[in-house]
C-alpha cells in the first residue's frame, strides 16, 4: 500500500527531469503569492468544503470533554450490568451511530478517536517535516558528501515497504500513542527532505542567492531569508497531504493491533473490533471507516487545492 510518500526510487529516475522542477518556479514576492493563493483557494469549492470539514472535526475533538460524555456516555468504560440491553444496538435516536459489543456509544468513540487520528496526523507530520527540512537543507545546501549520505539514507528508508517498516518499528518500541506518531514521523522524513532539497537546488540557481552570498550573508541567513520563503509553498502542500497519509497509516497500525492501547478509542481499532461483528452489527466498522475516509479525503483535497492555489508543481502520487 503506498501512502503519501513518493512512489519509489524508480519513479524518481523516470521522472527525474520533472522532479527537479517540482518547486515553485519563479520566486515571487511572498505577500502577493499568499494573497493570490488565498483568493484562488476560496474559489475552489472542494478545498473550501475540505477546510470546513477539517475545522469541524478539530473543534469537535478539542471540545469533546465539555459535552460528548454527558450526551453520549463514556467512550471507554461500560456498565456490565446493563450490557444485555445496551450492546450492539443499531443506530437510533439515542445512539446515532449505534453501540458496540460493550454497549459503548459509537459516536462518542468516533469523536474521541478523532483525537488520536488528528494528533498522530499532525505530530507525525511535524516530526517528518522537521527532520526532513533539516536533512533536506543539509543535502541541498551543502551538497557533496552530505548530499550523498542523506540521499542514500532516504533511498534506504524508501526501499522499505512503508506499512511493514512502521509495524516492525512499533513491534520494537512498543505500543503507545507517542510511539505511533514517533514511528510514523521518523519514517516519513525522506519525502519532505527530497522536496526541500530540490527546492533548494532550484532556488540556489537564482542570482539573488549568489548576490546575498557576495554581500557576506551567512549560510543560515541565506537558508532562512532567501531559500526557506521560496520553498514554503511546496512544503505546506506536502505536509498537508502527509497528514492524511499519517492518519491512514495510524488506522492501519491500529487495525493490526499495533496502534494505541485499548480501551482508548482509535478509528482503526474500532474497525478491527467491528470485524467480528461484520454480519450482525456492521455499523461498528462502517462508522469509524467513514470518519477516516472523510478526514483523509479532506486533507487530500485541501492539499490538492493548496497545490493549485500556490502553483506548486509536483509529481502525481
Amino acid at each position: 500500500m503506498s501512502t503519501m510518500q513518493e512512489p519509489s526510487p524508480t519513479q524518481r529516475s523516470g521522472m527525474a527531469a520533472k522532479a527537479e522542477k517540482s518547486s515553485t518556479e519563479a520566486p515571487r514576492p511572498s505577500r502577493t503569492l499568499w494573497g493570490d493563493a488565498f483568493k484562488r483557494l476560496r474559489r475552489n469549492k472542494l478545498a473550501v468544503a475540505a477546510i470546513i470539514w477539517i475545522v469541524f472535526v478539530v473543534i469537535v475533538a478539542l471540545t469533546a470533554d465539555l459535552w460528548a460524555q454527558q450526551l453520549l456516555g463514556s467512550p471507554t468504560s461500560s456498565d456490565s450490568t446493563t450490557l444485555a440491553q445496551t450492546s450492539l444496538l443499531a443506530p437510533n435516536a439515542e445512539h446515532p451511530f449505534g453501540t458496540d459489543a460493550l454497549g459503548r456509544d459509537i459516536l462518542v468513540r468516533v469523536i474521541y478517536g478523532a483525537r488520536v487520528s488528528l494528533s498522530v496526523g499532525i505530530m507525525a507530520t511535524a516530526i517528518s517535516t522537521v527532520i526532513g527540512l533539516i536533512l533536506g537543507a543539509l543535502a541541498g545546501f551543502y551538497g557533496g558528501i552530505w548530499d550523498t549520505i542523506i540521499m542514500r539514507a532516504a533511498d534506504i528508508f524508501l526501499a522499505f515497504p512503508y506499512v511493514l517498516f512502521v509495524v516492525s518499528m512499533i513491534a520494537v518500541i512498543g505500543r503507545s500513542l507517542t510511539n505511533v506518531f514517533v514511528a510514523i514521523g521518523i519514517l516519513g522524513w525522506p519525502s519532505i527532505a527530497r522536496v526541500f532539497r530540490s527546492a533548494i537546488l532550484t532556488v540556489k540557481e537564482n542570482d539573488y542567492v549568489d548576490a546575498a552570498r557576495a554581500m557576506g550573508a551567512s549560510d543560515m541567513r541565506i537558508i532562512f531569508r532567501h531559500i526557506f520563503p521560496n520553498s514554503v509553498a511546496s512544503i505546506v502542500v506536502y505536509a498537508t497531504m502527509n497528514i492524511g497519509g499519517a492518519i491512514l497509516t495510524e488506522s492501519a497500525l491500529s487495525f493490526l493491533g499495533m496502534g494505541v492501547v485499548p480501551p482508548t478509542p482509535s478509528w482503526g481499532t474500532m474497525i478491527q473490533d467491528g470485524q467480528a461483528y461484520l454480519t450482525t452489527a456492521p455499523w461498528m466498522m462502517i462508522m469509524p471507516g467513514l470518519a477516516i475516509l472523510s478526514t483523509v479525503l479532506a486533507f487530500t483535497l485541501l492539499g490538492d487545492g493548496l497545490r493549485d492555489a500556490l502553483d506548486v508543481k509536483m509529481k502525481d502520487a
Partner: protein
Amino acid sequence: MGKYILKRVLQFIPVFLGVTLILFALQNIVPGDPITLIGGDKALPPETELQLRIKYNLVKVDENGNAVLDANGDAVPTNTWERYIGYMGNLLKGDLGTSYQRKIPVTEIFAQKYPYTVKLALCAIVLEAIMGIGAGIISAVKRYSFWDTLVTLTTSVLVAVPAFWLGMILQLVFGVIFKVMPISGAGGASSQFQDWMHYILPAITLASVSTAYTARIMRSQLLDVMSQDYIRTAKAKGLSNRAIIWKHALKNALIPVVTYIGVDFGAMLSGAILTETVFNWPGVGYEIYRAISGRDWPIVMGGVTLVVLVVMVVNLLVDVSYGFLDPRIRFDRSSKSN
C-alpha cells in the same frame, strides 16, 4: 545502457547494506530475551539454554561450536558487531532463523506462504494495470468531461479509503448481503465457492489504492505528452487524433506508468499484510500479522526481511527494464545523470 545498468546495480549495494543494518538493529532491540520467549513460563535447564544461546548467536563459540567460557565459567556474550556478521552470514545463506513457537525454520514457513501472496499480488497487478491505465486514458482523452470528473473523484476517494476497510465493505456487500462471493481464505475443498472466486475480493482490495494512483499518473502523463511538440508534429503530418493518441502519445506516456506498476508489485507484497488479515488469506502478510500477536519475532523479522529483499530486487529489475523501455536511456552514449 551498460553504464546505466551498472550504475543501478552499484546504487543497489549501499541501499541493501543499509536496509539489512536497519533490520538487524530492529531485531536486536526487540523487547524480551528470546530465550525466555522460547521457554514460555517454564525455566529451561541451563544446558538447553546455553545451546539456544549458541544457536541464536548470543554467545561466542570456538571452532568446534562450543561456547567460549570466561574465568567464571560463564559464556561470553557476543558483541553487536559479531552478531551483525553472524546475521549477515545467515542471511546470505538464506537462514532467517527459527520460529520461537513452532520451532521450524522461518524460511520453511514462508516457502508455503509466499506463493499465495505472490498469486494474489499478480491478480491485483493485472487489475491495477487494466483499470488504472484504462481509466487514466479515458480521463485524459475526455478531459473535463463527465468521465474525467468521475475518475478524478473516484481516485481521490480510493486514495483516502483505508484498504482494509474497503475490503470489509466488499465482504459485507458481496459476502454477507448478496452472498455471491467468499469472504475468507483461499478456497480449497471445504469452500462452497470455486477457488478462483476467492481471489476476487482480496485482489480488488489490494489493488484499490494502486489503481487510483495508476489512473492519476496515467492521466497526467498522457496530458503532459499530448501537449508536447512532437504531438503537434504528428498532427501536422495528417494523423487522426485516434492515431496520435494510440501511436504517438500512449507509448511515451506508458513508459513511466509501466515502471510505476512494476514497482507497485513490491509495494503490494507489503500492503498484503492488511488485505490478507481482512480475508484470512494464508499468505506472508497474514502470517506476519499472527506472529506479531504471538510475539514470534523471528517470523515477523524474517517475513519483513523477505518482503523487503524481494521488493528491492523487483525495484532493481524495474529500474533496469526502464532502461530497455526508453530509447533515450537504451542508446545513451553519455552517462545519464540522475
